[in-house]
């Protein structure tokens, strides 16, 4: 017994000067429910991360006035949403809810947040904080350390990483809502200013506002709705940190989460027609492609180069909405939009210029948190019935 994604909605804004965080959650929720043909009163399960202000889900559940049988506020940063889909499917299979709503909303761009380059305070009682905070790490630095080590271990080049942005830009040119719509070249990427060696500005995703929502429901309800059936077929989640000092940055939590998702689905990477791969930075994508098994560990650079991720010409069409690298990374959490584009592809509702023919099997993979310090990884495999 599994569950179906019946509603998916990406908020159209990318700079929400005229919306509150709560409104962004609500507008996204209403958009996904309308997409599904369901109403807010149908919702009996709710999933949300820490992006709604306040402790847990108290504020958002009351704001939306949800009447719930199931609540889950798992937060693993940007990849929380794959976990929410998985946990919703599991709750539905266990009979704990019928209609699960998952929301995301935020406005870091309107608030002038320097997501990748500003030092973040952390909680004063985190046991790691006193040993790390004084060194002034930032998110871009954490990912850059991983890229530097990958180059050392496997000979990955800045040009190979650049191909990941190039591919995303080829897709974003067709997306009228994308933050960055210009097609870029490898030279454009490696000539952009260094943010944290070896990552350049164009190796980094956009900072954008907005959000999105998903509706997950049981088979009996999904089959009454007038939408293509998108089934949750495989799921995996994991976390990875410094391992007590045995730091190993050549692989991510996806090396654990990905194989379990494939095993549950009874599929291999060769079966996947479209992949949404979390793209906070180019190195994030490369790491996941290896850890998911689309290529051998260390071979990610060769896999992504020469347009292999471009829809229509490459072996693995990826992030056909333009991804976080070019389209949208709402509230610094890219997992929701990864799942939404996978659902579009499976429904045949992606932009015609990037729609994968006969797209029946898709994957959405995410990494949340700080790849070089402590992070989460999560994967969902979806099927069009």
């Amino acid at each position, binding site marked *: 017994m599994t569950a179906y994604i019946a509603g998916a909605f990406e908020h159209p804004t990318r700079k929400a000067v005229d919306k509150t965080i709560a409104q962004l959650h609500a507008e996204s929720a209403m958009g996904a429910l309308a997409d599904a043909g369901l109403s807010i009163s149908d919702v009996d399960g709710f999933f949300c991360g820490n992006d709604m202000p306040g402790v847990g889900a108290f504020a958002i559940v009351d704001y939306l006035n949800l009447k719930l049988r199931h609540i889950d506020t798992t937060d693993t940063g940007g990849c929380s949403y794959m976990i929410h889909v998985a946990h919703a499917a599991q709750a539905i299979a266990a009979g704990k809810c019928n209609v699960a709503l998952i929301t995301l909303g935020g406005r870091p761009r309107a608030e002038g947040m320097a997501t990748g380059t500003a030092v973040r305070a952390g909680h*004063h*009682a985190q*046991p790691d904080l006193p*040993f790390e905070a*004084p060194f002034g790490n930032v998110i871009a630095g954490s990912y850059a*350390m991983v890229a*530097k*080590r990958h180059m050392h271990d496997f000979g990955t080049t800045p040009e190979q990483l650049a191909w990941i942005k190039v591919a995303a830009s080829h897709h974003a040119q067709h997306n009228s809502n994308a933050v960055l719509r210009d097609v870029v070249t490898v030279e454009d990427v490696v000539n952009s200013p260094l943010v*944290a060696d070896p990552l350049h500005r164009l190796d980094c995703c956009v900072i954008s506002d907005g959000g999105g929502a998903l509706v997950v429901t049981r088979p009996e309800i999904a089959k009454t709705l007038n939408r293509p059936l998108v089934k949750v077929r495989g799921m995996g989640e994991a976390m990875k940190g410094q391992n007590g*000092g045995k730091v190993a940055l050549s692989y991510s939590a996806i090396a654990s989460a990905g194989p379990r998702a494939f095993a549950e689905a009874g599929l291999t990477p060769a079966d996947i027609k479209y992949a949404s791969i979390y793209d906070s930075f180019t190195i994030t994508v490369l790491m996941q492609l290896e850890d998911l098994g689309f290529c051998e560990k260390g071979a990610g650079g060769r896999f992504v180069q020469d347009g292999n991720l471009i829809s229509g010409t490459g072996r693995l069409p990826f992030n056909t909405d333009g991804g976080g690298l070019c389209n949208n990374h709402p509230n610094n959490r890219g997992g929701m939009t990864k799942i939404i584009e996978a659902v579009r592809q499976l429904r045949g509702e992606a932009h015609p210029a990037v729609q994968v023919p006969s797209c029946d099997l898709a994957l959405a993979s995410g990494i949340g948190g700080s790849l070089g310090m402590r992070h989460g990884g999560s994967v969902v495999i979806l099927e069009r019935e």
Partner: protein
Amino acid sequence: MAEATNRDDPQTWANPETGPYWHAAAGGKLLLKHCTACDQAHWYPRHFCPHCGSDRTEWRESQGRGKVYTFTVMRRPAPRVIGYVTLDEGISIFTNIVDCDPDSLQIGQRVQARMAEQADGTFLPVFAPD
């Protein structure tokens, strides 16, 4: 910038779990926790060994010798090198690499720790090339 921590700070100097590290660090010593059950060191220091879960962990002084595991260079407002150093004890610690030309620093380069006062008044190891 963080407020300077004082000797009563429960997260550092007065922390029941890590206090000995902070006091020794102010005196120029790098203490690691070592587990006598599984014979491995760990970082950052904890009461329970993160490798085997035992509480038979004890403080041991490190000579602070190691090699660069990875690093990055943040350029603004002024260049600073952030990275991990793998100590000869076999564990890697997050740190700044100092007294070096960031553009010629290499992974694998041998480095040596010195305890450095941070903006908040605590002492942490930073590493400089041999």
